[in-house]
């Protein structure tokens, strides 16, 4: 049995310690906002926050998440930066299919929490791990910049 802190709530899960956080979220806890794309930390659609840092949940064993604060897309709108990023995403009409956008938003929020005045270089560095096959990159960059300048 593992005790996890997810979006401020304690959750008990009875799963093997090497099960990735992604599948605990999705298949055990029914939190499907965090997506599966590659399983090898190459696409970033599974991005969540671990103590505020963007991590790829598809390769994070649940045993390593114990004792840390996990945040997911389901609750990121409750933070000030999260709310701003979501609003900016809609204002800039970033989304196409939308499948990768949970991960994009989690990476963007982690960046802006740490670096509220993120410039192009910082955006590139922080967002390079998040693929978008619809290639919404033009608007992702614009949406982040409008928050960072706000």
């Amino acid at each position, binding site marked *: 049995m593992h005790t996890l802190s997810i979006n401020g709530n304690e959750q008990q899960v009875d*799963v*093997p310690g090497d*099960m*990735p956080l992604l*599948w605990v979220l*999705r*298949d*055990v806890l*029914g*939190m*499907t*906002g*965090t*997506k*599966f*794309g*590659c*399983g*090898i930390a*190459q*696409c970033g*659609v599974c991005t969540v926050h671990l103590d505020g840092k963007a991590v790829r949940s598809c390769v994070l064993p649940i045993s390593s998440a114990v004792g840390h604060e996990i945040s*997911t*897309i*389901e609750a*990121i*709108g409750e933070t000030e930066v999260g709310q701003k990023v*979501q609003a900016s*995403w*809609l204002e800039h*009409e*970033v*989304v*196409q*299919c*939308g*499948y*990768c*956008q*949970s991960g994009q*938003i989690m990476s963007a929020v982690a960046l802006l929490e740490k670096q509220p005045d993120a410039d192009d270089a910082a*955006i*590139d*560095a922080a*967002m*390079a*791990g*998040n*693929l*978008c*096959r*619809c*290639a*919404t*990159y*033009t*608007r*992702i*960059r*614009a949406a982040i910049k409008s928050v960072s300048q706000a």
Partner: protein
Amino acid sequence: MEKPRFKSSRRRFLQGSTLAMGGLVLSTWLPPLIARSAAADAVAPGRLGEQSPTGYGAFVRVGHDGRVTVISPKIEMGQGTHTGIAMMVAEELEVSLDQVEVVDAPPNHKLYSDALLEFQGTGGSTATRVTWEPLRQAGATARILLIQAAALGWKVAPSQCHAENAVVFGPNGLRAGYGELVDAASALPVPTDVPLKKPEQFKLIGKPLQRVDTPNKVNGKTKFTIDLSVPDMQIASTLTCPVHGGTLRSVDDSAARKVPGVRDVVKLDNAVAVIASNYWACQQGLNALKIDWDLGANASINSAELEQALQDASSRDGVIAHKTGDISASLKSASSQFEAVYEQAFLSHSPLEPMTCVVHVRPDACDLWVGTQVPVFAQQTAAQVTGLAPETITVHNQLIGGAFGRRLDFDFITQAVAIAKQVSYPIKLIWSREEDMTHDMYRPHYVDRITAAFEGDKLLGWQHRIAGASVLARYAGSLPENGVDADAVEVAIEPLYAMDNLQVHYIREEPKAIPVSWWRGVGPLRSTYVLESFIDELAHNAKADPLEYRLKLMQGQPRAQAVLKMLAEKADWKTPLPAGQGRGLSVSAVFGSFVASMVELEMQGDKGVRIKRLVSVIDCGLVTNPTSVMAQIEGGTLFGLSAAFFNEILLEQGQVQQTNFHNYRQIRISEVPGVEVHLMPSLELPGGVGEAGTALIAPALVNALHAASGERVRRLPLTRAGYYIV
């Protein structure tokens, strides 16, 4: 896994497909096709009530609460079509977009066939083109009936009434909400004369309205197929034979069954599925299987062999797809000739949501919850696998996490149903990324050989040989009697450039061991790459400016000329660049639209490429939602750029070598500038946009590379020639 039969005859299907991919012919073909489409016919005899199963009730329902439901014949996979279709209906029905809910049409070829595709599907960049008239008509019909119902009740003339914001207003302050009028309106005869608004009367169409599906896509609430859960559902994942055409001999599943969470192991002809309480357990179970495959006849096939066969084919004559003038005589009499051979690689679709399908097979019925571009084919394959009647198969279509053509196929649905048939509970099949990439249906590898004849400076014409697998034949079952794959030769048979002699050959060369399918951009993408590379070479050979050279040859092509000129201006074509930098152009008529694109790049060292600017201009006729058009060109451009720079599927011993995004890499935000998109104001009929940006970018890229480095790359992707992005 057999494919379902197409309901429409093959001949009609082939005709439809030819048109569906949409080149210049569309502007003349579009109105009559729409006029006789099944969907348009269905608008006429209906009723307005919520329960109405047919009629414009096929597209529009108005509830007693006044809410409007639009039944979309097109699925949403990111292209914004749900919003565009809702805008068309709302425009004529006089409601605001937030009063409209969009749902996907159930499988029903008769009601929802695409007038260009001639089956119910979403693809070929046809959605706006084919819904433009019938969906506005459906909205207008409903509005007219609601007004008539109000007028009758008030005993006034309909001409004294008008509708606005879901309310009918009459003289002397009379007013009634749509909800109050539904029952009376449903009883009225359907008008035959349904005039539509003129563009200058549009209130919604042409405005950059917020998409209806995006708010829940920024907070994790949207459920894609992979996110669904139904009672008692288990997760399934498969290992399919690594060689296409191979089969399962036997499997030892004793260790797999001991993995905690694993519930069942199911054998198929060419695959093994592990069913478990969660995906992780499925993968642990699959890893523990000891499988004995019969790899079959394709187990020795390598890419080199397939490529050689295509090279050889490109020197044969095949069948003649188009002939104007006499190119043989021109080549004989020519004062000079120029030949080039271009190659394009096999490509995977790799949408970020892998192939996935939820299915529950019961003795008397079956439910499918799946994001599919082809709901009727999904229904038919489930019927075939289960032996159930199609009407007992319910398809619940879902928002799609990327398709790019992949979900025009239903192999994964067939597999999901075959697994579910063997168990009593619902399953959600999820392919791993590795399964998804190695068991895709790939964009074909093509070899084009093109030879131009000149008399002095004058282009007499060219002979163009196109060798490759036929996606059309694979999808429809065969090619028409003339043996021409109309998709593969599209654009090539109608170049924008004036010439007296043109001969286009199609040489069908089917690769072993690798199934092929539609890939975003389809025929127009493959031919635009070749033509726009070739014309650029001709311009350089003539020591002419590539822009001026094109413009001079583009006679009788005002819309193409206009987008190219606008591009030149927006992209600062005439401003000189320092050495080591270059710009490349492309222009084409694709999917009923005219598009021009420019890449500006800088060489860093021998092979390092920094992409500095990407600019596109599109004339897609009347625009429904300009934001969606721009977003499609932005994303489509980068989608095509990613493939042209990096992507190639290769076979060794019959097995696809690219397995995940580490060895089939995609472009990242840090590697590209934003795409600058400009819309040409236009009152022409709408053209397609979803694939338009993708179709233009590869030639602009290789042309820019040539301008910057002097090296002409004739084989995609660029990484094959050692280039990398910095």
